């Protein structure tokens, strides 16, 4: 086998020495690429080269052979990196499989189904930056079907730590589903859970809303979350849904105010995470204007379609190089 390699390599090398054509180099590179797939290390290639040269020139000065020996010796260092790389690739692959499983679990944990309601059009989209999502949108209808509640949540940080933290937030929300459904109260309880059980370096922003389906009143509160957008169709104006609540998990006892707005026909509300508004090279106010423009231009579409339009337009604007998890939630009367 080694003999075979030497014969083939010598052939390609002597062809190049004789003709010095591009195709000889091309064949040479392809040949070495094949060898690499068989785990032939760089020092092995130098050794094969040395032997080939010694056969091509039977009167090769001894000192040139020594020079090749020296080259073999120093190439062993690159050979080490080459092997290290191969074992790192195996590790990477194991990790990839592990993260795929973790992502599947997370998707299952964070899964929320959009309730189908006659009188209200609901859209949502949550796209993680990496595999695991540090954003979460959770949405449920109370048993009596009189209220729809939703939480749009963003964990500060990304990847596995954010995912771990998010699964905890989701659990807290699920427990609260059965409890008092006042946004102020929900945020206060969530804050206590997170403050108690999560590391000090982990903060969570959340926008919590409760929609009264009989009277079309949205009651909302925010814990350090990106302000929502409210579009009033009657005068085609946009308004910020602002609320100065502290991030969840900073202090144990925090009060969160809540506010009401009345939705009329064709009004809509956009809740999003900062991954939507933080557009590369664009100042936040300007980017909120861009989002207003996109939603306005597509206001005749369904809530879900508007979510998708915002995502695709912003992706294009940033050359598909988003820098954060992206979550948008739209309620349209």
């Amino acid at each position, binding site marked *: 086998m080694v003999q075979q390699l030497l014969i083939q390599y010598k052939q390609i090398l002597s062809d190049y020495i004789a003709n010095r054509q*591009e*195709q000889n*180099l*091309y064949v040479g*590179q392809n040949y070495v690429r094949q060898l690499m797939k068989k785990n032939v290390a760089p020092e092995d290639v130098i050794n094969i080269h040395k032997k080939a040269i010694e056969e091509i020139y039977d009167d090769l000065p001894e000192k040139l052979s020594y020079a090749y020996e020296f080259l073999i010796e120093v190439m062993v260092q690159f050979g080490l990196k080459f092997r290290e790389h191969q074992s790192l*690739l195996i590790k*990477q692959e194991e990790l990839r499989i592990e993260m795929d499983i973790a992502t599947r679990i997370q998707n299952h944990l964070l899964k929320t189904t959009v309730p189908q309601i006659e009188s209200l059009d609901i859209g949502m989209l949550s796209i993680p930056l990496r595999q695991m999502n540090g954003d979460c949108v959770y949405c449920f209808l109370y048993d009596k079907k009189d209220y729809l509640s939703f939480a749009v949540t963003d964990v500060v940080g990304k990847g596995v730590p954010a995912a771990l933290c998010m699964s905890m937030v989701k659990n807290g929300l699920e427990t609260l589903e059965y409890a008092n459904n006042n946004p102020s109260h929900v945020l206060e309880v969530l804050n206590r859970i997170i403050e108690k059980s999560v590391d000090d370096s982990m903060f969570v922003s959340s926008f919590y809303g409760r929609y009264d389906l009989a009277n079309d009143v949205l009651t909302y509160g925010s814990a350090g979350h990106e302000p929502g957008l409210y579009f009033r169709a009657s005068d085609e104006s946009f308004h910020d849904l602002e609320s100065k609540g502290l991030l969840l998990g900073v202090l144990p006892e925090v009060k969160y105010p809540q506010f009401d707005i009345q939705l009329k026909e064709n009004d809509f509300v956009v809740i999003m995470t900062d991954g939507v508004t933080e557009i590369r090279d664009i100042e936040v106010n300007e980017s909120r204007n861009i989002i207003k423009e996109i939603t306005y231009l597509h206001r005749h579409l369904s809530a879900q379609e508007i979510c998708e339009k915002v995502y695709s337009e912003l992706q294009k604007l940033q050359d*598909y*190089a988003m820098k954060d998890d992206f979550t948008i939630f739209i309620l349209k009367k």
Partner: protein
Amino acid sequence: MTEIITIDIKTEWDIITARQFARKIAKSIGFDVVDQARIATAIGELAKNIFLYAEIGQIEIEKIDNEDLNLKGICIIAKDSGPGIADIKSVLGENSPEGIGAGIPGVKRLMDNMDITSEVGRGTKIRVEKWLRMG
């Protein structure tokens, strides 16, 4: 100075032709033998991608310069009207998958700048540059 060499990529021989032109131009710009080999390798990967996945396409080679920064360089553009790349991010990632775009991260490492635009079903355009600081 703005002369552009265009090579149609239809057969494996065209890959070799593209490499040969790239090496010659790189040499005339003043790149040393190692950089010539890197540029030839990069253009070979781009051409192979066209040959394997788009079947037909062109490669353009151009000399470029930036007098302000006292730089000269080579620019290579690979264009095809093949299937396109749906997820450009995955192709630029460290472990790009087998198949279309397999050699792209390597090309990026051999050159200085890379820019990809692609539309699924319409084709792909990859532009790479490599710069040389003038004495």
